[in-house]
């Protein structure tokens, strides 16, 4: 049972991590809590569903459908940032509300076409394999591979390229970065593109797992993202990955319930335990495990 818990922790953790990194990145660079992040995942998943299944009368091959759905999420992300978030950036509350409104808009726009159908897409790879005596769908392994590849690429981008260093500079101190000749607007745009792309990729990858049972599902995904990012520390990529693993571990522990503590109905407590993990981490380390607090955020 321990092997099952650990293997599933890694597998689910990688799924969560992929979605959470974008959220964390936007916060780290732009200091914007993007509550529409999960809605972008949902959007990409539903575009994919619409394109590969006969539901809207178009049927494409998998590869172009994937590109279009991730591209759709990126375009919407750019639109939201450029025309809705950027004009009101000084008003902290207004930004939050606008991103929530955007998420609601995406949800309603999707339900105009798909009602509350699940985004049922076939797995990209078939079959399953056995790791340490635990059966795992090959699709999960694909997700694990994609996550590792994307995270490595992102780390390389942030540490090796000029643009990546500029992104980190803006995240550290916007004023000084702009004095050094970096254009914060450009850097923010690149961050938004990366974050929306990560959201889109995670959406299309999760879609075949049957996670998106209706367009309303962004709420629970968003909750999970927030918990992960807060546990790991807002703005830290390493933190998001560790946070995702912690959340996945707590979830699996609650589902398998090795000590038989809760009996029937333990699934209801799942959310509560995940939240409890977050509260404990925050009380012990107010900035999350790997987060840094800016001077004005310290107490």
């Amino acid at each position, binding site marked *: 049972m321990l092997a099952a818990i650990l293997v599933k922790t890694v597998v689910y953790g990688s799924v969560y991590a992929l979605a959470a990194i974008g959220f964390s990145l936007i*916060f780290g660079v732009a200091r914007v*809590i993007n509550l529409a992040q999960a809605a972008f995942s949902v959007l990409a998943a539903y575009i994919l569903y619409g394109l590969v299944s006969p539901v809207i009368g178009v049927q494409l091959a998998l590869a172009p459908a994937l590109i279009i759905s991730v591209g759709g999420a990126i375009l919407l992300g750019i639109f939201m940032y450029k025309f*809705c978030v950027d*004009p*009101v950036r*000084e*008003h*902290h*509350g*207004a930004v*939050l*509300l*606008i991103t*929530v*409104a*955007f998420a*609601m*808009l995406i*949800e*309603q*726009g999707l*339900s*105009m076409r798909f009602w509350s159908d699940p985004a049922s897409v076939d797995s990209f790879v078939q079959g399953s394999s056995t790791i340490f005596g635990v059966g795992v769908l090959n699709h999960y392994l694909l997700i694990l591979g994609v996550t590792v590849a994307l995270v490595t690429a992102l780390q390389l981008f942030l540490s090796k390229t000029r643009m990546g260093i500029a992104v980190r500079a803006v995240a550290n101190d916007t004023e000084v970065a702009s004095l050094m000749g970096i254009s914060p607007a450009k850097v923010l745009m690149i961050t938004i593109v990366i974050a929306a792309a990560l959201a889109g990729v995670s959406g299309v990858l999760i879609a075949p797992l049957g996670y998106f049972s209706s367009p309303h599902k962004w*709420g629970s995904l968003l*909750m999970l993202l*927030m*918990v992960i*990012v*807060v546990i790991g520390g*807002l703005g830290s990529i390493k933190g998001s990955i560790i946070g995702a693993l912690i959340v996945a571990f707590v979830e699996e522990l609650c589902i398998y319930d090795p000590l038989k503590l*809760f009996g029937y*109905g*333990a699934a*209801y*407590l*799942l*959310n*509560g*335990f995940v*939240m*409890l993990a*977050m*509260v404990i981490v*925050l*009380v012990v380390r*107010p*900035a*999350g495990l790997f987060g840094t607090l800016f001077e004005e*955020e*310290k*107490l």
Partner: protein
Amino acid sequence: MLKRLLKNFRYGVLPVPGRVIAIVFFIFLFIFPLIIQDTYYIDMMITATILAIFAVSWDLLAGYTGQFNFGHAVFFGVGAYTTGMLNSLLGWPMPATMIIGILAAVAVGILTCFPALRLRGPYLSLLTLAFPLMLASLVMYFAHYTGGHQGLGGLTVMAETLVEKYYICLIVMTASVLIMWKLTDAGSRYVRTGLVFHAIREDEIAARALGINTIRYKLLAFAIGGFFAGLAGVLYAHKHAYITVAVFGISLSFQAMIFVLFGGIVTIYGGIIGAYVLYPLVAFSYDVQSIIESIRSAIPPSMVPLLHIMSFLERFAIYPTAALAIVIILILLFMPEGIGVWLRHKIERECPRCKLHNVAWRKECRACSAPLR
């Protein structure tokens, strides 16, 4: 006494259009059941009234004190479930359970504050988000006592008729809004909470350096916020005598935030504007469909473009949430401080010398005759 009131009214209220509008609005609320007898609309207004208390209590905590609470529903839910379980399972009398429910919400507010004392900004927001979800999962787990999915029924109803309920809620709302307004009034001579709350929001370290015990005042803010949010929850529970786990829902917390940010944050009236404009708007938009239908049937078939517009509107009206989202985005883009503050700046102008509010079209201040603008 009466003379002084009259004098205050004549020189303090009548020359300021914002205050006149507020008084006219409250008079309208008090005669509302006399004008409209439709039970659907009265019921809608009762919910809007309860949500107004809830939204204003969020404004006190998040707007004035700067504790940007994402999980305000925890107070609402604890109030509702405490009174509900004591009243329906143990059969205790309603007034007693109501008071216990409010006190439980205050206790939860103080308990919430302890972890929140160490955090600020987005971390505080995300931490507070966790509490209602934890309690919701407890409600689902102990379904034997709380009803779980089915919800908890069998409570005592607040009053027999809908109009009585309306007046109870309205009077409670007016009283609590007045109390919260006075508590947050920075210029008050009697209580200094308003000033301290502003100081904590603007710069907590500076406030502490001035010798203000910020921890005590933050605890107080959470207790007051919990008190009024719990009051709203208790009223809600005894309105329909039935509650579900939705009282801990994330959408309820966001509703309070949306109402306040729509009307204007750090103004007590903002939450009231939001609750009384947005809540009925969503409810009305279910009727819009039939209105559009009747308009369309009146249009002669030769006017094709108009028919197209109508059918587009009709498709849109099926999704009131989408319409609401667009309205919120547009309003925040053009008036990011909220519609109430924007409107107030349009009709009132502050005197640069004595800080008194004047009608926008006056050339000079009514008290010190300094030229305005």
